[in-house]
């Protein structure tokens, strides 16, 4: 790679590393996310001449990150190190006692409801809500039409609303224990 390309690569890296890392971390643990981020940019290094260098670069990186996360996830699943995705996501990011117990329980309920969505629907929802992508951008990333994205989001929202409604009904009738995150 030429010096000019090296400089361009570093600029690309610095422009997008935080977003790529956040994407990986939302789907794994903090330490794994660093390895995954490196994997993603290693692919960018190797395909630097072929990858888009305009605003499409980030979406290209997200596409690579999807595969990287998927591969890591498969290995992890086989070794049975982690439980269900939702549980791992929720646990990975707990930094300490959460003062707002109700809010935490609500977040966990949302994560668990997300985990129950079909894989593609979950990916669409999180790309829009967490990564902040436009629906059209998600459509291009996933090789789906914009209307398909709209329909899937609508369907997913409906499922999430039902799931969360059920969860909130449970919460009303089930006391939260200290072990479950309730305050003593």
């Amino acid at each position, binding site marked *: 790679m030429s010096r000019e390309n090296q400089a361009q690569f570093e600029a690309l890296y610095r422009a997008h590393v935080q977003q790529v890392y956040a994407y990986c971390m939302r789907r794994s643990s903090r330490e794994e996310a660093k*390895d995954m981020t490196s994997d993603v940019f290693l692919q960018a290094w190797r395909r630097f001449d072929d990858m888009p260098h305009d605003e499409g670069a980030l979406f290209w990186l997200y596409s690579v990150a999807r595969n990287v996360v998927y591969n890591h996830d*498969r290995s992890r699943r086989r070794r049975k190190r982690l439980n269900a995705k939702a549980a791992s996501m929720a646990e990975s990011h707990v930094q300490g006692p959460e003062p707002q117990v109700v809010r935490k329980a609500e977040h966990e309920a949302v994560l668990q409801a997300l985990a129950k969505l079909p894989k593609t629907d979950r990916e669409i929802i999180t790309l829009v*809500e*967490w990564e902040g992508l436009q629906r059209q951008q998600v459509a291009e990333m996933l090789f789906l039409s914009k*209307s398909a994205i709209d329909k899937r989001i609508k369907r997913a929202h409906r499922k999430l609303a039902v799931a969360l409604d059920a969860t909130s009904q449970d919460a009303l009738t089930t006391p939260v224990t200290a072990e479950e995150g309730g305050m003593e």
Partner: protein
Amino acid sequence: MSNVSELIRSANPVPETNPLSDDEVNAVLTLTLTRSGDMDVKEIMTPIEPDKPKWSGWLVAAASFGVVVLVAGLALLLTRSTTEELPPASTPTTVAFSETTVAEDEVTQTTTAAAPTVPAGSLAAVQNFVAAMSSGDEEALRASVGPSFGYSGLVGDMVFNMDDLASWSGALAAQQSTITVDTCTAADESTLSCNEFHNGPVESTYGVPVQWSVHYEVIDGLVASASAVGCTCPQWGDVQKEIRAWVRTFDPEQAELMTSYPVFPDAAAGAALLKYAPMWESFEGDAEAAVALGVIRAYEAAANAGDVDTFVTLLAPGMTVSRDFDTNANAVSRDQWAQLPDRLSARDSVLRIEGCDPKGIDIDCDVYRTGPIGSAIFFLPMRDTQTFSVVDGQILNVHVVCQLCEVQGQNGSTIISWVRTLDADAAQVMNQTWIFEDGTPESDALWLKYAVLWNEAGRP
């Protein structure tokens, strides 16, 4: 629950916009560049400072470069034995790998001690060689080595020729492995001692990064010789053995290809591993699921062979097909589904079932129909996600989730409009039966003809 979006956003596990500190940003960049092999040897040899964050996997490996790890199992892979059972770590001669632990200051001493100067271009020569190895490009591979090139393994002092290497390269390409030169140190004026990683869907089933230590002698910009001295592949042989045993229960032919080791893995062995290693991982070696997979494989084979009789025996009486875009009124019947082999044949299509994943008692698979129609319409094979419910050796239900329906709909309509300008009758037939399962031999032939013409005409 009026604002689901807001709830999802508030549950974002990483709400901060810059979750990495500046130090971490730089560290990940350094790690990436090191793994890319583009940093020069001096940069690579800079010791990792003790107070840097320690990450699993790559960084640990990078910090321990130069440490020669011996494993006889590796050598077995490189050994041209004629025994039938092969995998590197599965014979009595195998010495279990034990990860050498060296204190960090020892690593520093090792790596900073008066390194000889390596001629410029040596690293590039090694990178050319490994790139050719993982690309399966035999011509590039032969061009990257000197005239008397030999590749040696540790045990038995075996030396392998270019034909062996070409075969192995074909296997690596077929199983989509990539080799990354991670770190290199100068062993003497013409020799680099390199750590490499083999990555890919197959390696990921081994549960650890597969790392090799290889000495490369470089003369006149070409790799004159290579010598594998170790690898961190403790489970490699055992895992391959398990995969082969599992595959044998439902696809003995492919399992047999995997036993083409130990002469040298070839493209067929690589392809078989690529097909089944990730699947074995997903299924965690589930024996019952293997039976269901066997049914799905037989279904795939019968469909592609045009063997309707066999195909029908695999569909349970009362079998149903549901599609995510169907209403009950236009759901596909078992009889319609039984025409799949003929339909594929009429469209010059091939059914390819991949990426199967267990989902409770069901199995989710990516189902492709490759052929000229899909290529014309999508520039891609047609793809669905299909869930197979297999009971007592027969398929009781197939649920189809169309992955490219929107594109199919848009381009399909465009094609029909275009055909209407050429042959209104044909367009009418196509318009009535353009969904794959609802077609007829006549409409299949028309679609085959016009989709290809449309593509060749520049997709007007």
